[in-house]
């Protein structure tokens, strides 16, 4: 129970690998870390289209959409995903991206509307704290 007396539910994260890239070690590792931090994690598996990811996020009523992108195609993929997030009116979903992301692309991703960017090597507490502080509260 939080101080308003409402039952506080666990933060639900939809972890997704958009695009064709199959390197999912990072996605699985972070999924384990988020689960250890008390969150509920649903992993979509590989080779997901943007529509599949958005539909899964809606169906699962996810608080957080976590994207793992290793292929270098993070800018075009995130542009499309953020467009669909807006179209679907998913205003309160927290979108975070991890993977092989050059530092110079982080501001570009933020401009697209991505809330948090965590390149490979980011310590787990940094990711879990960000999500806990910024995910919508149930």
């Amino acid at each position, binding site marked *: 129970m939080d101080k308003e007396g409402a039952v506080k539910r666990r933060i639900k994260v939809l972890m997704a*690998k958009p*695009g*064709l*890239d*199959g*390197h*999912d*070690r990072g996605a*699985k*590792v972070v*999924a*384990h*870390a988020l*689960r250890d931090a008390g969150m509920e*994690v*649903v*992993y979509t*598996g*590989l*080779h997901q*289209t943007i529509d599949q990811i958005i539909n899964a996020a809606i169906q699962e009523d996810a608080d957080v959409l976590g994207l793992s992108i290793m*292929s*270098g*195609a993070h800018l*075009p*993929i995130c542009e499309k995903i953020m467009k669909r997030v807006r179209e679907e009116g998913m205003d309160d979903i927290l979108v975070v991206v991890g993977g*092989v992301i*050059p*530092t110079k692309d982080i501001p570009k991703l933020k401009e697209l509307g991505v809330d948090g960017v965590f*390149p*490979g*090597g980011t*310590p*787990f*507490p940094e990711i879990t704290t960000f999500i806990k502080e910024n995910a919508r509260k149930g």
Partner: protein
Amino acid sequence: MGVAKYNKGEKDAVEEVILQSGMRIKPVYTPQDLEEIGFDYAQDLADPGIYPFTRGIHKLGYRSRAWTTRQYTGFGTPKETNERFKLMISQGQTGLNVAFDLPTQMGLDSDDPLAEGEVGRVGMAVDTLRDFEIAFADIQLDRIGSGLTINAVASIMLAMYQAVAEKFGYSPKVISATPQNDILKEMIGRGMWIFPVDPAVRLIGDTMEYSITTMPRTNPVSVCGYHIRESGATPAQEIAYGFQIANSYIEEVVKRGYHIDQFARGITFNFNIFGNLWEQVAKFRAARKLWAKILKERWGAKDNRTMFLRGLFGGGGSGLTKEQPIINAVRSAYYALAAALGGAQTTALCSYDEAYTIPTPYSALISLRTCQLLMDEVGLRDTVDPLAGSYFIETLTKQMEDRILEEIEEVDRVGGMKDAVATGYVQRKVARQAYEWHRGLETGEYVKIGINKYTDPGALGSEGKVELHEYDSRTAEEQIQTLNEVKRTRNGREVAMRLRELEGAARSSKNVMPYLLEAVKAYATVGEMTEVFKEVYGKFQEPSIF
């Protein structure tokens, strides 16, 4: 992954070393250790070139032949890749190792909507035979072998390689291709799968069967423990899972009525190097010995050459860091040393910038020079298996052999590798270990320079100080133009007919390779041929591991 656990006492004294595969290293080894493991020269080692080949498959090792250098190369359009091939060959590289982009690996044409943003990004884009004609122009295919890093659609790429060789005037009997063609490891790590387990393994069986008569110098399968380790496996698991995967492919061909000595020579391996040097060397020596035993005892091989563990030992991608990237050049040099001390026939080293993106010509040449330096200056060709007889190395090799056998037996207990992969058994185990490794890095249980020790970010070529390969956004446009031109000029009716014949073969138990060859020669696209297989076989359903 890779470094060991070091438990230290006061004043930084090392009190305990536990290698990733579980063995403990003692501070001192003596003849007593060899006695305890029951070491017997003839049974455990034997001379180089003699069963069980622990000391190497050739009598004179690197004296008779240096290891092949096969840097992973390929990006953008086939034309750009061809230029890089020629650069590397002109600098002394002795084999090719072709990288394909993700759409090609997934059997999609460059104009497929799903390919958007990915064309030519992490490897060369291939849509039709035209692309192979451009990529391999002026390469002497009878002199240089080509590794093709492709799996789900390896049968298509092998047909393309044969077709392009014939077109350039080489008999398929003289060309040497090594498509990776290892779908089970794609299902464990790396993820470039398309079809379900059984038809995917059947396609691999078709390439193996076809190679026996048509392309005898080709190695139709390169089992890739490498990627399993990248996903979180220990060195012992890397070998055990790789061998169990190879056993699945062997079973597929044996059940078609072939004898092991007819085809097992075409199975090669791709193993990973990073982490503790001793563990890597012991891993390769134990692997060579165990593979010979498996071939002889499990499969009844009689020909020594069938029992040779041949392969590429290299890479080391997971050992490299984004932090202080220039240090990766030093790391890679030690990985190359481990490969040489382990008796690699072929080495490809990851380059110092590969934690970011594909290598520049500059970084790729540093990797090539690293191997050349070991061969030509440092003395790694002087004598065969120089660590043989070391109290420590022989003890560790024996312990590694036991660890690998335990892991092999565990997979047997869950029904063999095909079942272990279909149910997600291996994937779950490997993913858990990957997590534990990362947690170990955060707690400091494992040490990685630049990540959790000596971390000064500005000290040694952090990001921004390193020149990186930039993706050229015109690549897709150019590639789609070539594709459209091929489609305009090819005989559409012939393509349709060839694809129908391919479908017939895929639905029957006929070997699909001759049909693929005809479709390829008619300039059918990778997407069209893959679509035929998808129609017949369906798609792999990834087991849920959470």
